């Protein structure tokens, strides 16, 4: 979309921190590596990208899916040999967790609690056992399993998709456009799990998983991980790497509310405006979006909820190559996203952040780099679109 050159002002305390390192593990099937080992490899990768080492880290963030005692950062901090931590956080919000972590790291740095924050994520759902982030048993039965009838996560996304189709006339072919765009982007990514370009026909002719969602409407299941390093402006000035600004962020939750629930929108309707307001930009100013893509319907609803189009118009919005880089109106997930590239540990928040950093630094894969990419939006959807969810939105900017 059109950029807003010259109109950006200096923002809030969030501008005290910048992203300085990012690294995505190249592996998609890692049977011989331990989960902790993948955390370590991505930690070293992101720190090396920044020109830093583990000895520089004083803030550490990971999810409850990290291996070890109690769920959270303790065991991984020990494994990584982090001896001088002054700030640690394992906010748990499903696949969106890493986006919360980047935002919380920026807030901690702005508050002077740490100056070099490391965020890691790793998972092995493809070749190993994927620990959940669930914690102890829930206090009450969930409404969707209380009379267990074979409903699982994918079915609730399918229920959301059918309701969206019913209310707004959205079609399977329109949802397929989202996968088509992702697959085109993945074809430029040598590490992508699925590299074949798909057509709308390929998507709608793929086997049904939970009607109306086909296999190609679903994200990939991959091993892997990624890490991001957030530092203070002062630390960034001492390094040679191009910083990425954290201009604004918003969080929100939409829970089952005892059954008062509407699946046709997500909590992005609240997290988005909070992030845009803090950043002082609008959807029209955004050049690139990393949108959580557990399923095609997830992307469609989030695009509407963030205000890139009106509610119900997502189906028409994604047609005609809107999402295709580099020249679509709103290129998305140029690494191929969770739909085609990588969804390590069923948690796409880290790869969403990493690809936005690549775009803003001009380091995306050849063929998908957006010319003059100045403002990127990263949005994570944690939990389940069809029942309870949490949202985190970040607006990132190219450093002047």
């Amino acid at each position, binding site marked *: 979309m059109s950029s807003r050159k010259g109109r950006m002002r200096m923002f809030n305390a969030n501008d005290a921190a910048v992203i300085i390192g990012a690294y995505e593990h190249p592996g998609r099937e890692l049977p011989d590596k331990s989960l902790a080992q993948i955390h370590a490899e991505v930690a070293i990768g992101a720190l090396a990208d920044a020109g830093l080492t583990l000895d520089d880290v004083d803030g550490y963030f990971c999810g409850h899916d990290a291996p070890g005692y109690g769920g959270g950062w303790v065991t991984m901090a020990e494994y990584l040999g982090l001896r001088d931590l002054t700030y640690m956080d394992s906010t748990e919000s499903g696949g969106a967790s890493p986006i919360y972590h980047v935002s919380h790291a920026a807030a901690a740095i702005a508050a002077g609690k740490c100056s070099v924050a490391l965020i890691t994520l790793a998972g092995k759902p493809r070749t190993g056992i994927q620990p959940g982030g669930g914690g102890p048993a829930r206090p009450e039965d969930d409404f969707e399993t209380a009379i267990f009838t074979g409903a699982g996560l994918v079915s609730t996304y399918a229920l959301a998709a*059918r*309701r969206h189709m019913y209310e707004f006339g959205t079609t399977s072919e329109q949802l397929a456009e989202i996968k088509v765009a992702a697959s085109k982007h993945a074809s430029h990514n040598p590490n992508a799990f699925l590299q074949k370009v798909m057509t709308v026909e390929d998507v709608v002719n793929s086997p049904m*998983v939970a009607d109306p969602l086909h296999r190609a409407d679903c994200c990939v299941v991959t091993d892997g991980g990624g890490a991001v390093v957030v530092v203070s402006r002062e630390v960034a000035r001492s390094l040679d790497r191009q910083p990425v600004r954290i201009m604004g962020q918003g969080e929100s939750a939409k829970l089952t509310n005892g059954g008062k629930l509407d699946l046709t929108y997500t909590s992005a309707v609240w997290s988005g405006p909070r992030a845009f307001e803090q950043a002082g930009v609008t959807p029209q100013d955004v050049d690139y979006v990393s949108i959580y893509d557990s399923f095609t319907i997830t992307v469609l609803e989030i695009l509407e909820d963030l205000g890139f189009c009106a509610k119900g118009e997502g189906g028409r919005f994604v047609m005609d190559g809107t999402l295709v880089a580099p020249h679509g109106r709103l290129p998305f997930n140029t690494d191929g996203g969770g739909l085609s590239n990588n969804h390590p540990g069923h948690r796409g928040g880290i790869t969403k952040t990493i690809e936005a950093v690549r775009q803003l630094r001009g380091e995306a894969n050849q063929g998908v780099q957006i010319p003059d990419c100045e403002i990127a939006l990263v949005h994570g959807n944690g939990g389940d679109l069809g029942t309870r969810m949490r949202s985190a939105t970040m607006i990132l900017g190219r450093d002047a």
Partner: protein
Amino acid sequence: MDVAAYAKLLPDITPRNKPFWDGCAAGELRLQKCADCGRYRFPDAPVCPECLSSSASWETASGAGTIWSWCTMHQKYFAAFADEVPYRLVYVRLAEGPLVISVLAEDSDDSAADSGGTSSKELRLDQPVHAVFRPRPGGRVIPQFSTGAAAGM
């Protein structure tokens, strides 16, 4: 159906939820109603999700609702349901307010299918349905939903 695998997926019957399961066995949908704010809730819980009040009564609900959405599961995600695919799930908004996910009674009812019942038809969203009670393998009676004429209405 793998009855042992299915049994593991069902909630245990406890003193708290026993009125619900007794209702199912008796062919009635019973819901808790908050004594303070009047909110009906499902599933059972010790406190009201609206006002956190701990006092509630068990009431016999109408069993009526509408299809908020539905889908057909093709993937074998649960061992217990591996030989059931494809099966349809309905997401029902009960007249009293709560949401329930269950199956369509006609889909597990051979006679309805044989006589050209709903199982061969497309479902409509916002279509009225009502709860019916069928024993599942292993003997637990669960509420399912039917698009047919409600008995006794």
